[in-house]
């Protein structure tokens, strides 16, 4: 054990499959009780990193400790101290609520009075009091999801891995779920979130972005939004939209542009002069510009910019 007893410390982690480097010298450290988001496109090495951290595969080189144990040399110790929950709930639909909880408790060697106490706690936490003997398959999505969370934390893991935990869940249940996650983090559990949902990423204290096996960004959601884009993002409302798009792509002060709903999003290295000049530029081409203003980039803008290396370019390019 080292002094990072309950969190995650990753140093120069590498995983190769044959000649393919899936994870390429990744390093980071999470604080106790931190909600840490791990984002990346499909095939970026994100899932491989999670499998490494869960002690399911061993690294080619580099090291990582999870809850104080080395993933390479003490993977079984690591597995006892982590919880894992996926949106594709691993619950048994034809078992009762308490049966699922007891089953997962048994897997993690939680027994006797401790198991009884934890099952009671999980039922309360999940808001399932009175439904202990309901069939799991008959529960609404939000309740099922909280039951899955209960199963994943029955053994009091120090690090909790969540994979798209709230995709498809109704927004009210989703907010309740994140409230529970925040409470666990308050108690010192480190929460590791992987997701393609940028609105889930907003709930994370810090985000790491992985692309082609490398970590390309690390920071709070706010820091990433402020720093990831080269220039600023403009919202442009104009008519006709298609002509406006074509014109903007050739306009001075505009690096690229794309359709977003009924408006255009454009990136500009010099937003203030763009705002001053673009309406006249469009008007000269018979396009009426009703509105142009700087907007805050979304985490999706950040994600796309950093994983493609060229912000917003190539959108609507056919």
């Amino acid at each position, binding site marked *: 054990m080292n002094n990072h007893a309950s969190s995650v410390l990753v140093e120069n982690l590498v995983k190769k499959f044959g000649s393919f480097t899936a994870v390429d010298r990744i390093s980071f450290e999470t604080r106790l009780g931190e*909600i840490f*988001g791990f984002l*990346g*496109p*499909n*095939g970026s090495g994100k899932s491989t990193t999670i499998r490494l951290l869960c002690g399911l595969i061993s690294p080619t080189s580099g090291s990582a400790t999870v809850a104080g144990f080395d993933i390479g040399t003490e993977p079984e110790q690591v597995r006892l101290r982590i919880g894992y929950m996926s949106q594709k709930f691993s619950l048994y639909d034809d078992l009762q609520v308490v049966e699922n909880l007891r089953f997962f408790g048994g897997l993690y060697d939680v027994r006797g009075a401790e198991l009884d106490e934890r099952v009671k706690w999980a039922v309360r936490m999940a808001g399932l009091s009175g439904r202990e003997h309901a069939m799991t398959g008959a529960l*609404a*999505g939000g309740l099922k999801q909280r039951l899955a969370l209960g199963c994943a934390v029955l053994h009091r893991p120090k690090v909790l891995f969540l994979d798209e935990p709230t*995709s*498809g*869940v*109704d*927004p*009210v*249940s*989703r*907010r309740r779920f*994140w*409230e529970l996650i*925040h409470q666990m*983090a*308050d108690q010192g559990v480190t929460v590791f979130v992987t997701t*393609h*949902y*940028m*609105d889930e*990423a*907003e*709930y*994370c*204290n*810090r*985000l790491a972005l992985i692309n082609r096996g490398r970590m390309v960004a690390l920071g*709070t*959601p*706010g*820091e990433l939004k402020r720093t990831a884009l080269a220039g600023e993002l403009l919202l442009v409302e104009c008519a006709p939209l*298609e002509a406006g798009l074509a014109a903007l792509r050739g306009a001075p002060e505009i690096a690229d542009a*794309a*359709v*977003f*709903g*009924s408006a255009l999003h454009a990136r500009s290295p010099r937003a203030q002069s763009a705002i001053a000049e673009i309406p006249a530029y469009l008007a000269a081409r018979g396009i009426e510009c009703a509105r142009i203003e700087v907007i*805050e980039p*979304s985490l*999706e803008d950040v*994600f*796309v910019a950093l*994983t*493609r290396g060229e912000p917003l370019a*190539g*959108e*609507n*390019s*056919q």
Partner: protein
Amino acid sequence: MNRVVEVADLTKRFDTVAAVDGISFAVDAGEIFGLVGPDGSGKTTTLRMLGGVLTADGGRAAIAGYDVLGDPEAARHAVGYMPQGFGLYDDLTVDENIRFFADLFEVSSREREEKASHFLAAYGMSPFRRRLAGQLSGGMKKKLALVCSLIHTPRVLLLDEPTTGVDPVSRREFWSILYSLVGQGVGVVVTTAYLDEAERCHRLALMYRAGLLFCGTPAELKATLPGTVLSVSSPEARRLQRLLEHAEGVLSVLALGDAVHLVVDDPVRRLPQLRARLAAEAVPCGEPVQVAATVEDVFVEAVESAETRA
């Protein structure tokens, strides 16, 4: 405007449970219409009825003017339907899959070739025409499924959660394809459980428990939120949340990773109070700023007020 989808009082029951309960909406040519809502809210059932693979129990639906019940064949030819897990044949090549779907709709080989070349080039897939569908990446598979749905030149495209499980880069590419399609006059109905995708639709309906909570443009949707959303960035968002939860004029507080979002009744009155409170409590935080409401903010408010009324 040219109505390409008309839905009136559409209902579907499974046993005694209404999966879709008397919903109505219309979609114009050149419009992307989103059916947005959580799993189990009735989105897929609605789309299946429009696609002619499920029969409604009540109400009516028309595609390009053809009643899906009265004239199902004509309606089916006017529609391209891409269900979740679209049935591509993994052991057929890209070209063979396209040919299969073209033959189903009796598309001539000349037209098929023209369309296939056009779409495959536009979607960056020309080099992969002889690759087995099973060997394509997830994003490519979605694009191939789209080409197969478009091969008979439908006037309406029905897409059931086309971006689920797709990463943000591919998701954005998929949307830019949709924008180019509607530019050519196709009407699109797309379902999604991603609330942030609602903002990309021209109009949308929020679907919840078999019914529609709202139908309109994203801007109209956001205008329905009572109150104004303020954002305060802070490394101690949770502490800030607890501090402000019961403050005067604060309707709700949501803790995010590095900020809180507050809905307040009157920003002009509340902002000075808020600043004073934050200064007195000495919580490390940024200046409160007004931010646009998200579709999720509105959805939560709509569900909660619907439940209060019930």
